[in-house]
Structures are given as C-alpha cells and as structure tokens.
C-alpha cells in the first residue's frame, strides 16, 4: 500500500510540474472518453490541441487564440488577487456581463455622435459596472457576514436576467427587425474595439490583459498591498496585527476583480461579440477561475494557462465542426483539467511513500 506523508514545504519543482501533469492527464482522460464515445482519440486530441495552431486552417483559428485568451487573462488577474487573500469571487461572469452592459449603455446613449471620448468613456463605464457588481458581495460580507462565494455566484444569474431584459427591452436595436439584441457596436466606429493588427486577433482587451499581468506582478511581489494580501491569506490574525483591515481588503479584492471582469466584458461587447444579446455571457468568468488556479495565481502562470484554456475553446469548436464532437466537449475538458489539477496538487503538499 501507499500512503501520503506531508512535506515541510512545497517544492518549486512540483508547483511547476503539477499543472503540466494535469494537462497531460486531461489529454489521456479526454482521449479515453472520446474513444468510449466511438471517436478516434488521437484525431480528437490533435484537432483540439494541435490543429488550431498548426493545422490546415490555422490562419483562421490562430487569431482566435488572443481573442479568447485576452478576457480570460484579464479576469484571472483580478481573481488571483482575491484568491491569494482567501476572498473567493466566483461571480466574475456576472461582473463581466454587467460591465459589458454599462459600457454599451454609454455607447448607445452617445449614438450616433462621433467623438474621441466615447470609447474611453465606455471603458470607464465597463470597469465601474463590474466594480459595482463586485461590491455587492463585498458589502454584504462586511456588513452582515454573508458568504461572498454564494452572493457573487448568485449575482451571475441576476446579471444574466439583466442581459436578457436589456436585449429584449431598453437596449433593443430599433433597426433590428424586432430581433432581440442591441445595435452592433462594431458598426459604430467611435465605440468599436477593432483588431489592432490585422490577422493577429489582438484588440484593446489584449493590451489591457498584458497591462493587468504586469500590474499584478508588481503588486504581488513589490508592493505592500500584495504583501498584505498574501498575509491575509496565510495568517488572518497576523494580518490584523500588521494593520490590515479585513473589510478593506474584501472591498478592494472584490472591487478590483469586478472592475477587471467588467473591462473584459466591455472589450468583448465592443469587439468580437459586437452587441448585447440575451445570452451575452459565454462562461469566460467561470473559466477564468480555472485559469487563475492552473496558473498558480502567478502572473506568468496565468499567461500560459490563459493561452491554454483559449486553445481548448478553439480546439473544441474545431472538433465540433470537423469531427462532430458534441458541444459540451470543451466544458468536459475544462472540468477535467481543474479536477486533475486539484488532484495532482496533493503532490506538492505530500509525498507518496510505500507503506512497509
């Protein structure tokens, strides 16, 4: 028999190795699943992980990598701050939707004016909207001790209803032949978030993601705020002793992660998505949780994990088209990845010994 023996400290090697192991295990587990469903596992794996980048149609799919990775990374950066402090924002999806709606509201209010300030004002509104949606669980936790996990999660469903209401009601495109959905911002130059370099998939959201990565790195490793966040996560009493006000940290972490999620939503609605529809949210807010953990809550890790998760999105769609794999494949894949990651995580904290 084997047994687990706690390690004194988590070795860096294992911290890096477990995400890699988790990815490999997901490939094997996914392959087995596809085989059981009657698909060729090797072809499926190749279609998901290889073809989007180097396959025959890669020229079309490659730009999608940045399009999808941008919002994931942007959201994950904010989540990582809170997760380090033991503050669990599970509702980034809701903050993402509300941010998009607020930004769109500014654009629609200005329509059809052509002015330089419209896009910056939308960015501001998007961040503010996400921030406000994130502050709801923060205030409820600070005032009444409500669990931010539950409140932020439930607010996702509220946000989805708001999006549907907007699409059918106040924001419905008057020239949309009575279809639900707002005007398409891509066709409104002053409000559009276009591709910056043709064929790259990079839009302002990608730029914001890179800035967020740099800022996260700076705050976590150089700034006293990051030190306080890490202290609060590791030893709450020591944090109080050091002068950290837990309520402030809760408000800050939920507010910042909400604002970043709101930004991601705004860049999406003004760019790739183009309009608010009844099903605007596409799960980025949830997938970003996986990105944050897969990336070990570290900026560099988040960058890699964001690209990898983007790949599974694209690969999943490709597999759907090419091999007729069911649409839920991507979600199963992402779920498996988180599952294996948490499973292998045991190896960073314990070593396996053979029982004598």
């Amino acid at each position, binding site marked *: 028999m084997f047994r687990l023996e706690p390690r004194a400290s988590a070795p860096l090697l294992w911290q890096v190795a477990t995400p890699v192991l988790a990815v490999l295990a997901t490939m094997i587990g996914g392959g087995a699943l596809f085989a059981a469903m009657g698909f060729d596992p090797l072809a499926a794996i190749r279609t998901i992980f290889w073809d989007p980048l180097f396959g025959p149609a890669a020229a079309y799919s490659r730009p999608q990598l940045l399009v999808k990775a941008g919002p994931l990374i942007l959201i994950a950066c904010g989540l990582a701050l809170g997760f380090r402090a033991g503050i669990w924002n599970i509702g980034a999806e809701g903050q993402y939707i509300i941010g998009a709606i607020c930004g769109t509201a500014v654009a629609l209010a200005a329509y059809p004016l052509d002015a330089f300030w419209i896009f910056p004002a939308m960015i501001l509104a998007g961040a503010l909207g996400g921030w406000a949606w994130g502050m709801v669980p923060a205030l409820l936790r600070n005032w009444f001790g409500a669990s931010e996990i539950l409140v932020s999660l439930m607010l996702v469903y509220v946000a989805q209803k708001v999006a549907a209401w907007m699409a059918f009601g106040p924001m419905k495109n008057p020239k949309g032949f009575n279809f639900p959905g707002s005007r398409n911002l891509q066709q409104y130059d002053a409000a559009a978030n276009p591709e910056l370099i043709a064929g790259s998939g990079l839009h302002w959201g990608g730029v914001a993601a890179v800035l967020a990565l740099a800022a996260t790195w700076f705050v976590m490793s150089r700034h006293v705020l990051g*030190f306080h966040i890490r202290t609060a996560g*590791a030893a709450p009493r020591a944090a109080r*002793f050091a002068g950290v006000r837990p309520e402030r940290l809760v408000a800050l972490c939920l507010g910042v992660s909400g604002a970043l999620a709101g930004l991601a939503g705004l860049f999406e609605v003004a760019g790739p998505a183009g309009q608010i529809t009844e099903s605007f949210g596409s799960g980025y807010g949830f997938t970003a949780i996986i990105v944050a953990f897969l990336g070990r809550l570290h900026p560099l890790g988040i960058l890699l994990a964001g690209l990898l998760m983007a790949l599974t999105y694209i690969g999943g769609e490709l597999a759907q088209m090419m091999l007729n794999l069911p649409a839920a494949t991507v979600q199963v894949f992402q779920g498996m990845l988180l599952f294996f990651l948490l499973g292998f995580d045991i190896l960073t904290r314990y070593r396996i010994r053979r029982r004598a």
Partner: protein
Amino acid sequence: MTDVFRAEGLGKSYPGVRANDDVSFAVAGGEIHALLGENGAGKSTLVKMIYGLVRPDEGRMALLGAPYAPHDPRAARAAGVAMVFQHFSLFEALTVAENIALGMEDPPPRAELARRIEELSQGYGLPLNPARRIASLSAGERQRVEILRCLLQDPRLLIMDEPTSVLTPQEAGILFATLRQLAEAGTAILYISHKLEEIRSHCDRATILRQGRLVGTVDPRAHSARELAAMMVGAEMRLVDRSGRKPGAPVLEVRGLSTPGGEGVALKDIALSLRAGEILGIGGVAGNGQEELLSALSGETATAPGTVVLEGRDLSTASPETRRRAGLLAAPEDRLGHAAVPEFSLAENTLLTAGARQELIRRGLIDRKAATAFAQQVIHAFDVRTPGPGTAAGALSGGNLQKFVIGREVLGRPRVLVVNQPTWGVDAGAAAAIRQALLDLAAQGAGLIVISQDLDELLELSDRFCALNQGRLSAPRPTEGLTIEEIGLMLGGAHGMEVAHVPA
C-alpha cells in the same frame, strides 16, 4: 528498573541543520525523565521521532525490548506511546467526552466513555466534567483533557513537550502529582521543559542535548540550576543586570478601557499609567484578558476615544500602523500565525511590524534588501539559531522564533513596548538574554508593559506589578518587597478558586 524505551544513535537532518546527531539514551519504567536543552537543541525533533511524526535518518529505537520504528502516530499509540503536545489540538465547540472520543481508534458508547473518564480523572486527582465544553476550560483544564486522552490508552511511555509553560504554579503542582502517580504505576515519562527548578524538584533523571548532540544523562538533584544550564549551553549563564533605570515622565496613559468581549474576555474599565524607563508587570492566569489587552494596545481592536493616550496623543482609534509610527509597539504571545506568518521567510516577517520604522517599506514599495538586512540584524543581535533570513518562520524551533519576534520589536526603538509571555518556551540562557534586552530597553528610556504568567520573571523585571483577573486590572503595587505569596493572592489563585479581593 527496566528500560521501557531505548534509543541508539538517532540522527535527523533538516536542510542546513543537524537537528539530532547520534543520540542514545534510555527511559526506565517508573521514572520521570527530563529532556533538557537550549532552544533548537533538538528536543521536539527527538520526541517527534519517538511518536512517529518524523522519521529518523539513522539509528534504532526499542520499546519494551522489541525493535520499534513507528510509521505514524497511530502506530506509536498502538505500541503504547502517548504524547501531549505543547499546542492543544482540541475542538472548542465540543465537550470533553466528545473530544476524547474523536481521538480514539474505536470509542466505547457515550455513557461508558463518560464513566471511564470520570473514573480516571478521579483516580488521578484531575477533576474534569466530561460534559463541559472545551471553550469554557482554562489552559490547565484543557491540558488535563489531553492527558486523560493519553491515559485512556494506558500508555507505557508518556511524552510531554513543555507542558507547564501554560500552567499556573498551582496547576503545575497538580500535574506533577499526577505524573508521579503514573510513574509509580510503572509508566515511563519523558518530560521536556525549560524550567530548571521544576526539573530539579520533580524529575529522576535528565538527558541533556546541545546542538542536537547528547551531552549526557545526569541526576538533576545532584546539580544546581546554574550547573544544568551550563551543561546545556556549554558555558556559564550570565546574570540579569537591573541597574541604570530611573522612571521619567509618563509616556502611556490608559483610562476607562473596556471592550465588549464577545468571543474572548471582556476588559472592564482598565486604567494604568506608564512612565518612561519603567517596566510594569501584569500577572495573571492566561485567558483572563491578556490577549485582549494586548490587542487593545497594539491597535488590533479600537476602543473608545481617550482610552489609550501615548505621550499626549490619543491613539485609541488609531490603526496598528499609526501606533507603530508613533512608537507604540507590541509582541503578541502566539508567535505562529499572530506575531509571525509561519509560511513566510524571516525577512518577509520583518515587514509585518517593522515596515515603517525601519524604512523597509517606502511609499508602498517593499525594499527586499533592507528587509533581509534587518532580519539578519535581528538574528545576529538576538542569537537566533537559523540558517538565515530566507528560512521560513515555521521551520524555526519555538524558542528561536520567540527570540526573533521579540528582537524585531526591541530593535524598533519603541517609546512603549507591550509584550505578552516574552520568554514562553525559551531556554534559560535565551530567556535571560531576552529579559536583559527588555531591561536595557527600559534603561534607554522606553516604557514597557510585560504580561506574563511567570511570576519569577515579573518579579525579576518589573518596577510595579498588577494582576489581571477576569478582565479587571488591579491597582499596581511596587514590586520591591512583594512576596510570591502576596502576588498569588492578588492573582486570585488557580483557576476555579475563590477570587481574592485585591487590596489597592
């Protein structure tokens, strides 16, 4: 007497430290055997190997004549080894009986267990009601729960790691009576403590470790405390020098300080006045408001305006950071998770309290080099035994971390320093060094509040003494001329005894 336990050539290394090196000794049935050594000498590591928590790198052990190599504590318990840790592992919300049942392999039915607990506790003079909740018990009573938990297993070897550091003298007396009774029934007892007098009066043999190596096994009664200490450190101990202090102007005024209590003890109308260059000793059984008082002074809990005034400045509602900038520093009792973060390196741990005063954090930016240098300075000035500033705080031995925590504040040149249990779990030599540092700080003109359960320590350090009892602070009395008995009266005796009225 026959040997119950025997160790031969035990060795254990950690990165950068040889925690145990070629340690051989034996514990006989019926004896109370002390394990002595400086902080970091390897005592805890040694007993953890016996209890199966740590695997030896080399060497052999034998229990009752048979080879013994436990893989985990469960195997150790099955073989007849029991251990009481310094830090209790009890669930506050559960009762005594429930806690004991949780630790058993196959607990008997409730009624049966309650009966056995009562039987045992009566038999050993450890009165304990199985239906009481842990949260309502004093430290001494909690320890009884741990001991009873061990006794129910009917151990052949009972290990106790620093059991009396949290006990009042009265509670310690009860503990030794119990241990003696157990020993007479043939149990072998291995006992770790830094209190040399206690060991001299209660233990039959003492095994001394120095830097992981065996110095020898001696009869503690045949040696003075100074001689024992000299064997531990390999040199003579220095005496504490109290000279050179003269009280100056008042620096800290506390008036009408009350807290609501809630989870802990409510502080009731605390008043005290502290002068520069003075040490005020606050005695009392832990759990009578010590932690709450420290929190109210450090700034972790804010109090009504006008209750905490430092040199004319009202700090009652100020944050811990503001208080530190103003010169009011504090060192809490619990070093793991309160005074320090176990997962962080020593360098990072300096940032907890010394950020502003040592300029380790400027305009929000962390100066890592400065933090490392300051950690190195504390390590050097307080003789903290560790490979370096990069070591995680949790990897230090208890006493060495204590030295680090106190040193961090003392080097912060405080106007007022509040310390709770400054020498908790610190060996005699290091305790003397810490006390000397506190005295020197006062001699340089700082005001000090020393909260402690160790009456000898308070008598040695303080100019005035007051007692904290159920959240109330007695009026201070000059320490000069106070006897231990008078202090005992002020404290109201052991927990559960009639509360004495304190003459003002």
